C-alpha cells in the first residue's frame, strides 16, 4: 500500500490531512498513532475509499482509490477487512450469523462448508463456544474478537483496525494484541492499526507513523520511536502533560474570565 502527497479537507479553509506519504510493505503490521483529532481515522477512511483525497494518491492493493467507481470500490473492499472501534456487530444476528454474514453475501458456499469456515474463524479467536450467543450477551473484549473473526472471514489481504484497544480490560487487551499479530502472520496479510494506545501498540507493530495536525511528523521502527528526540513523540510516548501539546485549550485571559479587578 502506498500513499503519495495525499491531502484531504472537508472545506478548503480547514485541511484535515496534509501531504501524507506512507509506504507499507506486504505482510507488515503498521501503526498510525497520534492524539485524538489529528486525522488518523480520516486517513483510514481515505484508505478504505470512504473519502476521496483532495490531492495526491492512495494506492491500496494495486488500486488507485481516487478513480474507483462504486463497483470498483466494493471489489477492492472484498479483499479488505476492518475492525471497528467497538466491533459494530449486527445486533439482530447471533455471533455465528455475524461471522457468516460476509460469506453469505459474497459466496454461494453450501451450508456445511460455510459452517466449517465460520467455526474455524471463531476457533481462531477462541470463541467457537460462543457461536450461539447474541452480541448483547458478550463482553467488550469478546465482541471485539467476534468482530475480528468476521473481518477475516473472507481471508483479507489488508486488515484495518480503528482503535482496537479502546475500553478493553488487560486480559482482553493482551488477547487482541496477540490475535492481531498471529492473524496477520498466518493469513499473510498486511495490517494497519490506528490507535493512541502507544505503549501497547509499540509491542505489536513493525513500523509506526506518528501524526499531528494532519501531518506525519515522525516515523520509524518501535525502538526508534521510543528513542525519538522529537518533542511531540516524547510527550506522547511518555504521556506527559507538559510539551508541545498544551494542557489548556486556547482561552481568554484567566483573570478576565474570573472578573478579577486589575490594579
Amino acid at each position, binding site marked *: 500500500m502506498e500513499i503519495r502527497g495525499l491531502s484531504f479537507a472537508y472545506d478548503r479553509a480547514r485541511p484535515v490531512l496534509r501531504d501524507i506519504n506512507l509506504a507499507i510493505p506486504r505482510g507488515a503490521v503498521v501503526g498510525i498513532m497520534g492524539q485524538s483529532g489529528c486525522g488518523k481515522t480520516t486517513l483510514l477512511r481515505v484508505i*478504505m475509499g*470512504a473519502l476521496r483525497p483532495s490531492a495526491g494518491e492512495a494506492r491500496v492493493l494495486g488500486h488507485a482509490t481516487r478513480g474507483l467507481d462504486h463497483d470498483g*470500490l*466494493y*471489489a477492492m*473492499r*472484498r479483499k*479488505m*477487512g*476492518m475492525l*471497528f*472501534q*467497538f466491533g*459494530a*456487530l*449486527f*445486533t439482530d444476528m447471533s455471533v455465528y450469523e455475524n461471522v457468516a*454474514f*460476509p460469506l453469505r*453475501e*459474497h459466496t454461494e458456499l453450501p451450508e456445511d462448508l460455510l459452517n466449517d469456515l465460520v467455526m474455524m474463524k471463531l476457533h481462531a479467536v477462541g470463541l467457537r463456544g460462543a457461536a450461539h450467543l447474541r452480541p448483547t450477551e458478550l463482553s467488550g473484549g469478546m465482541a471485539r474478537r467476534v*468482530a475480528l473473526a468476521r473481518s477475516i472471514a473472507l481471508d483479507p489481504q489488508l486488515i484495518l483496525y480503528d482503535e482496537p484497544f479502546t475500553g478493553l480490560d488487560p486480559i482482553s487487551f493482551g488477547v487482541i494484541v496477540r490475535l492481531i499479530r498471529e492473524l496477520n502472520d498466518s493469513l499473510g496479510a498486511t495490517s494497519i492499526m490506528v490507535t493512541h494506545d502507544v505503549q501497547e501498540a509499540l509491542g505489536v507493530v513493525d513500523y509506526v507513523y506518528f501524526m499531528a495536525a494532519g501531518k506525519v511528523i515522525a516515523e520509524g521502527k518501535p525502538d526508534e520511536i521510543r528513542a525519538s528526540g522529537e518533542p511531540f513523540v516524547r510527550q506522547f510516548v511518555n504521556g506527559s502533560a507538559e510539551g508541545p501539546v498544551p494542557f489548556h485549550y486556547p482561552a481568554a485571559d484567566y483573570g478576565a474570565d474570573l472578573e478579577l479587578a486589575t490594579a
Partner: protein
Amino acid sequence: MRVADLRARVERLGSGVTSHVHRLGFASRFLAYLVLHSGTALRRFRLTIAEIYFAGVLSLVIILVSGLFVGMVLALQGYETLQRFGASESLGVLVALSLVRELGPVVAGLLFASRAGSAITAEIGLMKATEQLSAMEMMAVDPIARVVAPRFWGGVLSMPLLAGLFSAMGIFGGYLVGVQLIGVDAGAFWSQMQAAVDVRNDIWNGVIKSLVFGVAVTWIAVFEGYDAPPTAEGVSRATTRTVVTSSLAILFLDFILTALMFTGGNHQ
C-alpha cells in the same frame, strides 16, 4: 434596527425553506437509489418476508383491536343518526363505506406510522450510530440494498394488508354493535352492504390509498433513520419526525386522493 431585524427574519425563513427543499431533493434521490437497488430485496425475498413480519405481523394486535373499536363506535354513532330518518337498516353500508374508503386506510396508516414507522427509523438510526451500516459498507455490502430496501418493501406490502384487516375487523365490530347489540336486521345489514359497496370504486380505491400511504410512511421512516445524526438525540428526533411527518403526509395525501377518486361524479 427594525430593518435589520426584519432582514434577519427573512433570511431565516429563506434558509429554512431552502433547507427543506434540499432535504426533499435528497430524500427523492434516496428513494430513486433505493428502488433501483431493490434487486437483493426482491431476489432474496426472505429478507423482505422477515420485514413483513416485523412491520406487518407485529402490528396486527394494535390494528385489529383498533379496527374493532372504530367499527363499534361507527355503528353506535351511525345508528343514532340513521334511525332519525328511518334508515337504520343502512347501517351496514355506512360502516362499510366509511371503513373501506376512509377510516381503514387512514387510521391503519396512522397506526402503522406510530408502530412500524417509528420502529424502522429507530432501528436504522441505531444501526448507523453503532457503525453497523459502515461495517456493512466495509464488507462491500450496500446497506441501502441489504438493510433499507427490504424494510421499505416489507412496509409497502404490509400496509394494504393491514388496512384490509382493519376494515374487516371494523365491519365485524359494526356487526356486533349494530346487529347483535342494537338489533338491526342482519339480512338488511349484510345485503345492503353487498349492494352498495362497489369493488372498483370503493374497495380498489381503498387499496390504492393504503398502498400510497404505505409508500409514504415507509419512505419517510427509512429516510429519517438513514439520515439521522448518529447520536442518541439524533435518533430520538428522527423517530419523532417520522411519526409527525408520516401522519401529516397521510392526511394530506388522503385529501388529494379523495378529491381525485370520489368527487366530480366519479361515484354515486
